C-alpha cells in the first residue's frame, strides 16, 4: 500500500490544483444548452473563465452572481435570483448549473432553501430551465471533487425513479471522469456503438468542447449531453464509471434506479481495456468486432516497440488522484518507475494503489523540490509545470488541465487500445527527442565515480 503524505507548510508554492467550482462548471459544460453560474464575486468567475478559454481556445459560457460588498455582508440570495432571471431572459438555457464559491460558503447561507424559494416564486419565468445546485467552496477539493459533485447533482435533480419495464434495451450509461479528453469520449462512444449498444455519456464534453465552428452565435453550450438524456440515465441496463471519483454518481444511480455499475479506475492499460471490452461483449451479447480486435493487436505491437524507451526510466507525475493513478499505472506497465508522485488531496482511496513509494499531497513547488536530486527523466503534469521543467532541464509532457501553451490537448486520446497506443508513442517520442548524451568521459570505465550512484542506473530503495 502506497504511503500518502499530507501537506505540511503554510505557503503553497505554484499551485497544482484548479478550484472545485471550476471542476463543477467543467461538468456542466458537458450538458447541451447549459450555462454554469458561479455564486460568488465576479473575480471568481473571471479567473475560471479565462483558464477555460486558455485551455480550450473556445468561448466558454460561464456567468456570475457578481456579489459586491453589500451582498457579501447582507446575503447573496437576491443576486442569485437576479442572475437566474437575467440568464433565462438573455440566453434561455436548458440548464443552469449553480456552483457556490468560497466567498458565499464562508458566509454560509441556505442555498438550497433560497433556490427552492426562487424556483417557486419565479416558476413562470424560469419554466423550461432546469436549475441544479452544487456546493463547491474553493477552500476544499479540486477539479475532481467539483466534477463528481456536479454529476451527482445532475442525477439527483433530473433522474426520476423509473417504473419497471421502462428499461431501454442496449442503453448503457457512461460516467466519464473529468480527465478524459474529447477524443476519449468519442472513442468510448464509437467502441460501445461497435457492439450495438447505445451509450448515454454524462457529462459529454465531446460535443460541447470539441472546437467546432457553429454557423450562428450560441450563448450557451452547444452539443453535450441533452437534458433529456440525463433524465433517461435511470433507464439503462448498466452504468460504467471511469475513475474512482465517479463512484459517487454511479452509486447514486444504483441506489435511485437500481442500475448495476462497473467502475474502472483507469482505462489506460491493456489489461483494463480488455476488461472493458469484455464487459461490452457481455452486455451486448455480441462478439468483439474485428476493428477492435485489430486495435488490440496494434497496441500489443506499440507496447513491444515502445517498452525499450520506458525501461528503467524515472518519471515524476503531478496530477489529481485518478489521473495520477492512470498515468502511474501506464508508465510502470512499460517498465518505468514513478520516482515522484504529487497529488491534490489525500481523500481518494485510489491513492494507496498508485505504483510509487509515496504519494505526496502538495503543489508544484513540492513537485520541483522532490524532483530535484531524484534524477528524473520526464515530468508529467499540466502546463504550469513548465517553469519547473525549465529550471530542472527535464522534458515536460503536458497532461490534464490546464494546458494553455500547446494546441489540441482535447483531441489527444489517452484511453482504450487506441489511446494507450498513442500515449506509448507520445512518451517514447519525448524520450527520443531528449536522448541521453554519451560522452567519452561519461563512459570511461576507469573514471573517478565516487560511488555507483549516477542517477539513471540508481535503483530506488524499496
Amino acid at each position: 500500500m502506497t504511503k500518502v503524505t499530507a501537506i505540511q507548510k503554510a505557503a503553497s508554492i505554484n499551485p497544482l490544483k484548479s478550484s472545485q467550482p471550476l471542476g463543477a462548471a467543467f461538468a456542466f459544460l458537458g450538458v447541451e444548452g447549459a450555462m454554469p453560474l458561479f455564486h460568488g464575486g465576479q473575480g471568481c468567475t473571471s479567473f475560471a473563465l479565462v483558464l477555460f478559454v486558455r485551455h480550450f481556445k473556445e468561448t466558454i459560457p460561464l456567468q456570475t452572481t457578481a456579489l459586491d460588498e453589500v451582498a457579501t455582508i447582507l446575503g447573496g440570495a437576491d443576486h442569485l435570483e437576479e442572475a437566474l432571471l437575467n440568464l433565462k431572459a438573455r440566453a434561455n438555457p436548458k440548464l443552469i448549473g449553480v456552483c457556490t464559491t468560497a466567498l458565499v460558503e464562508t458566509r454560509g447561507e441556505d442555498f438550497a432553501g433560497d433556490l427552492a424559494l426562487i424556483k417557486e416564486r419565479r416558476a413562470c419565468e424560469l419554466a423550461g430551465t432546469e436549475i441544479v445546485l452544487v456546493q463547491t467552496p474553493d477552500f476544499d477539493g479540486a477539479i475532481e471533487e467539483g466534477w463528481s459533485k456536479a454529476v451527482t447533482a445532475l442525477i439527483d435533480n433530473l433522474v426520476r425513479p423509473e417504473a419497471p419495464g421502462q428499461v431501454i434495451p442496449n442503453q448503457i450509461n457512461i460516467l466519464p471522469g473529468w480527465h478524459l479528453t474529447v477524443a476519449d469520449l468519442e472513442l468510448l462512444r464509437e467502441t460501445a456503438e461497435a457492439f450495438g449498444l447505445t451509450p448515454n455519456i454524462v457529462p459529454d464534453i465531446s460535443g460541447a468542447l470539441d472546437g467546432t465552428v457553429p454557423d450562428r452565435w450560441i450563448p450557451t453550450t452547444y452539443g453535450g449531453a441533452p437534458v433529456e438524456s440525463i433524465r433517461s440515465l435511470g433507464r439503462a441496463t448498466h452504468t460504467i464509471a471511469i475513475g474512482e471519483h465517479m463512484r459517487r454518481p454511479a452509486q447514486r444511480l444504483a441506489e435511485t434506479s437500481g442500475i448495476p455499475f462497473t467502475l474502472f479506475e483507469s482505462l489506460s492499460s491493456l489489461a483494463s481495456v480488455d476488461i472493458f471490452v469484455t464487459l461490452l461483449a457481455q452486455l451486448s451479447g455480441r462478439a468483439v468486432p474485428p476493428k477492435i480486435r485489430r486495435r488490440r493487436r496494434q497496441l500489443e505491437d506499440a507496447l513491444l516497440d515502445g517498452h525499450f524507451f520506458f525501461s528503467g526510466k524515472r518519471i515524476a507525475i503531478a496530477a489529481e488522484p485518478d489521473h495520477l493513478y492512470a498515468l502511474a499505472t501506464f508508465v510502470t506497465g512499460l517498465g518505468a518507475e514513478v520516482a515522484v508522485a504529487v497529488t491534490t488531496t489525500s481523500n481518494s482511496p485510489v491513492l494507496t494503489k498508485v505504483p510509487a513509494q509515496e504519494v505526496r499531497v502538495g503543489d508544484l513547488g513540492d513537485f520541483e523540490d522532490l524532483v530535484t536530486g531524484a534524477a528524473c527523466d520526464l515530468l508529467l503534469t499540466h502546463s504550469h509545470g513548465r517553469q519547473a521543467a525549465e529550471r530542472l532541464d527535464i522534458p515536460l509532457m503536458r497532461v490534464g488541465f490546464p494546458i494553455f501553451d500547446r494546441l489540441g490537448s482535447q483531441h489527444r486520446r489517452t484511453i482504450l487500445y487506441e489511446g494507450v497506443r498513442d500515449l506509448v508513442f507520445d512518451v517514447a517520442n519525448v524520450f527520443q527527442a531528449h536522448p541521453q548524451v554519451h560522452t567519452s568521459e561519461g563512459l570511461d570505465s576507469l573514471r573517478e565515480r565516487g560511488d555507483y550512484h549516477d542517477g539513471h542506473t540508481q535503483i530506488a530503495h524499496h
Partner: protein
Amino acid sequence: MMKDKVQHLFNEPACLKNQAKSEKERRVGCSKPLTPGAAAGGCAFDGAKIALQPVTDVAHLVHAPLACEGNSWDNRGSASSGPMLWRTSFTTDLAEIDIVMGQGERKLYKAIREIATRYRPPAIFVYSTCVTALIGDDINAVCRHAAEKYGLPVIPINAPGFVGSKNFGNKLAGEALFEHVMGTVEPDDVGPTDINVLGEFNLSGEFWTVKPLFERLGIRIRASIPGDARYADIAAAHTARVNMVVCSTALVTLARKMQERWGIPFFEGSFYGISATSDALRNTAALLVEQGAAPNLLDRAEALIAEQEARAFARLAPYRARFAGKRVLLNTGGVKSWSVVSALMEIGMEIVGTSVKKSTPEDKERIRTLMRDDPHMFEAMAPRDLYKLLAAGEADIMLSGGRTQFIALKAKVPWLDINQERHNAYAGYDGMVELVRQIDLAIHNPVWEEVRTAAPWDDEGQLTAAHPAASAPMASLVEQVAGDDVPPRAKLVAPAFVARHRKKFADTRVDNTDPNFLAHHRKKFAGGAGDDIGEC
C-alpha cells in the same frame, strides 16, 4: 477605513472622466453596479495583482482559498530583464479548517516566514481577498509584525475582490505603493533627467523598444511601474523629476499624489502610435527642461523624433497599397480606442467602429475629430451583436483582447490581440510597424479563404452540385489536380459572404490615392497626447 479609501479614490481630481462629472455624480463613484448573470471582467484583487505582479524581484503572496491564485497564476506576458521570482506563485491556499478555526492570520504569518527564509526577496507583497477580508484577518498587523521579525518590507495590498472592479484594484495597488513603498530608499545617483513611467506593463518586453529612445536623449528611467520594475527602483521613485502616466485610469491617482508630496510633475501619454510616441518624448523633454534640465534637450528630442518618424513612415509605406479599403473593428476601449485608430488611419485603413467603454470624454472627443462626422463609436457590445456584425462581413479584421477572440474566429474573421495576453511588442515606432505587419499577416493569411469555403455537401450530407469538388467526377478531379487547372479557391468562397463583405462600406472608404495622405494625416494628428495600456 476601506470606505474612506474607496470614496477618496473615486474623487480623483486628475481623472478626466471625473472632471466632466457633476459633484453629485462624483460622489456616487465610478464603478458601475454589476448585473448578476450578465457581468464580465475581473475583480479588484485581479486588478491589484495585475498592477503589481510584473514587479520582478518581489514575492507576491495571495492570502486566500485556492481559486484566487490557483486559477490565475503565471498568466501575464510581462517580461523581466533579470529576476524571475514574480512568476513563482505563492498563496496561503486556505482550507476549510483554517477558515473555521480562525487560523488565517497564523497561516499567513508562517507563509511569510517560509518565503522570507527560503527566497530572501527584497520585499513581499501580501494580497487580501474576499474570504480573508470577510473573516476579518488583519493583514496590516500581520505584515507589520512579520516585517519587523524577518527584517524585510512586507507590504499589505488591501484589495479584496468584492470592493470593486479590476480598474479599481489597479488604483488600490497604486495606493499601496504610495503609502508603503515609495520614498523608503534614497538612491545615491539622483540625476536631473530621471523619470518614472507609471502604468507601463512591459508586455512582451515592448518597453524595451521605447527605453533606448529615452536613453539616447540622456534620460534615465528610474522606475518603470510595474513592468520590469525592481522593488528598490520603486522605493526610490520619488527622486525622479518627471512622471509619465501611460495607463492613466489605473495609476493617475498615484501620479497626482507624487506631485503633491514630492513635487514631481506628470503628463499622460502613450507609446501606441507614431505621433503618440513622439508626443511622449516631446512632453518628457519639455517637463524635464522646466524642472531644470539643460534646454538643448528639446532640440535633441525634436531631432530624434524627426529621424524616427521618417524611418517609421518609410517602413509603413509599402503597407498602404495592401491595406487599401481594409476595414478594422477595434474592441478595446480606453486610449487605444483612438491612439491605435489614428495610427491605423495614418496608413489608410478604415475604422468600422471603436469601443469607448472605458474611454474618457476627452478620448471620445478625439475619436470624433479623427473620424470626421461619423464616429462609429459604440459602448460595450453584446457577444451576440458582435458576432452578427462580424459574420455579416462588416470588418476585415477585429483588434481586441482575448475575451472576444473566439467571437471573431467563430465568425471566420481575422483577429489580432492588442491587449495584455498578446505575444508581440507594439509600443513605440518599431512597435507600430510591427502592429501593422501583424495586421497584414492576419488579413492576408490564406486560411481565411479556406475556412470560408463551404463544405461540398448540404445540411443533410447530400453533395452539392454547385461545388466543383463534389460535381467533378473522380477521375477528372485527379486529372485537374495534376494539370493544375483546379478553379482557384477564391471562387469557392460562399458568394453571399463576399457580397456582405463589400456591400455596406463600399462608398465610405478612405481615398488612399491621395499622395499626400500620410503627410496630411501626420499633421492632423500631431499634438494628440495619450494615456493607456494593458488593463485600461
